C-alpha cells in the first residue's frame, strides 16, 4: 500500500470537492470560507509537487490576505439586515445593473468553454515531451555567478531581474488604481472602528514582534532556501492589517509622502539599479559585478519586502475602509 499515493488521492479528492462546492454555493459567505480552505489544500498540493517556494507564498496569501479581502468584501456586500444567504447572492453579484445575472445560457456557455478547454489542455499536456526539465540545469550552472545560493532567488533577482522589476511596477499600478477608485490621495483617516477592543489589542501587541521576527527570518532565508521578499512582504502586510484592525498606529497614520516612499521603495530601488547599470559605460544594462551582486540583491529584497507589504496592506485597507465612506 503506497501511502504517498493515498495521500495524493485524498488531496485531489478534497481539492475537487471544495472547488465543486465553491462553484455551486449559492451563499457567498460559504463560498468565501470554502475559498480559504481551498488555499490550505492547495498549499499542501504545492508541497507534494515539490514547489516549497510557492507553498510558502500560498500559505501566506491563502491563510492571511485572501481571507481578509474576501471576508471584508463580503461584509461590504452584506445588506443592513442579516438576511439569509440565499436571497443575498443574486443581488450581490450585480455590479452592472444592465447586464443580467448568470442565467442558464451563460452557464451552458461557460461549461462548454471550460469543458473544451480542459480537453484541449489534456491533449496538449499528454503531448508534452516527458524528459524536458526546462532551464534547470543552466540555472544551477550559473548559480555561482549570481551572488545567491537559492536558485529561485537567483532567477527572480538576477537572471530575470527585469521581470521582477516590472512585477513590482504592476503592484504600484494596482495600488494607484485602487486609490483612483476610492477617490483618495492617501490612506489617512481610514479608521476601522471607534469601538476599542482590549482583547484584540493585546493579541496584536503580542503577535507583532513575532511577525517582525518572521519577516526578517523569511527575508534571510531567501538567500539560500525557499523564502524571500514576496513571502516576507505578505507577512508584513498581514501585520500591518492586524495593527490597523486593532486601532494601533499602522500605515494609515503615515503621511502621504512617507506612504508613497514605502509604496514605491522596491520599484524605485530596482529602477535605480537599472539606471546606474545602464549609464555605466563598461556594463550591460542590469548587469551586476559578481562581487557586488549578493549585496545588491539583499538591498533590493529589503526594499521589495517593504513595498510588497505596504502595497498589499494598502489594497486590503482601502477596500475594507471603503464601507464607511
Amino acid at each position, binding site marked *: 500500500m503506497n501511502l504517498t499515493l493515498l495521500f495524493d488521492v*485524498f488531496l485531489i479528492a478534497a481539492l475537487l470537492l471544495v472547488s465543486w462546492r465553491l462553484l455551486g454555493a449559492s451563499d457567498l459567505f460559504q463560498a468565501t470560507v*470554502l475559498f480559504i480552505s481551498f488555499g490550505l489544500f492547495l498549499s499542501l498540493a504545492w508541497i507534494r509537487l515539490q514547489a516549497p517556494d510557492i507553498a510558502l507564498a500560498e500559505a501566506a496569501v491563502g491563510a492571511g490576505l485572501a*481571507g481578509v479581502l474576501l471576508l471584508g468584501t463580503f461584509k461590504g456586500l452584506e445588506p443592513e439586515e442579516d438576511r439569509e444567504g440565499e436571497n443575498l447572492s443574486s443581488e450581490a453579484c450585480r455590479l452592472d445593473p444592465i447586464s443580467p445575472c448568470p442565467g442558464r445560457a451563460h452557464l451552458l456557455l461557460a461549461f462548454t468553454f471550460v469543458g473544451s478547454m480542459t480537453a484541449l489542455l489534456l491533449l496538449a499536456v499528454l503531448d508534452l515531451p516527458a524528459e524536458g526539465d526546462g532551464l534547470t540545469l543552466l540555472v544551477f550552472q550559473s548559480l555561482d555567478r549570481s551572488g545567491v545560493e537559492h536558485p529561485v532567488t537567483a532567477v527572480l533577482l538576477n537572471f530575470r531581474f527585469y521581470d521582477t522589476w516590472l512585477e513590482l511596477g504592476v503592484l504600484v499600478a494596482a495600488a494607484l488604481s485602487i486609490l483612483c477608485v476610492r477617490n483618495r490621495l492617501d490612506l489617512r483617516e481610514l479608521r*476601522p*472602528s471607534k469601538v476599542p477592543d482590549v482583547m484584540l489589542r493585546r493579541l496584536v501587541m503580542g503577535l507583532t514582534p513575532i511577525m517582525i521576527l518572521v519577516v526578517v527570518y523569511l527575508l534571510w532565508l531567501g538567500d539560500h532556501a525557499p523564502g524571500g521578499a514576496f513571502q516576507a512582504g505578505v507577512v508584513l502586510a*498581514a501585520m500591518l492589517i*492586524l495593527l490597523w484592525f486593532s486601532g494601533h498606529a499602522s500605515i494609515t497614520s503615515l503621511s502621504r509622502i512617507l506612504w508613497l516612499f514605502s509604496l514605491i521603495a522596491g520599484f524605485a530601488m530596482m529602477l535605480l539599479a537599472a539606471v546606474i547599470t545602464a549609464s555605466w559605460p563598461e556594463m550591460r544594462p542590469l548587469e551586476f559585478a559578481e562581487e557586488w551582486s549578493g549585496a545588491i540583491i539583499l538591498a533590493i529584497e529589503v526594499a521589495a519586502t517593504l513595498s510588497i507589504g505596504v502595497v498589499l496592506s494598502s489594497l486590503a485597507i482601502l477596500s475594507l475602509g471603503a464601507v464607511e465612506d
Partner: protein
Amino acid sequence: MEKFYLGVACFLLATMIVGLVRVFVGPDQEDRLVAVQLFGTTGVAILLLLAEAFDASSVRNAALLFTLLAVLAVVAFVRSPGSLGEREE
C-alpha cells in the same frame, strides 16, 4: 517511521474531508468559520508530519506561516467596518 507519519497525515486529511460537511451545512456563519479554523490546525499538523516524513524544513516554515496568520481572517470577519456585531456593541 516516515511511513507511520505519512499514514497519520493521511488520516488527518481524511478527518478534514469529513469536517467539510460542517462548512457545507452551516448553518451560521460562525459555524463555517469554526470549521475552517479546525482545518487550519489540522493542516498545520499535516504539514509538520510531512516535513518530518520528507525531511523538508521549508514545509515547517509554511506551517509557521499558517499558525501566525490564522487569526487574520477571523479578525477581518469580526472587525470589518460595517460588520453587524460591531454596531450592536
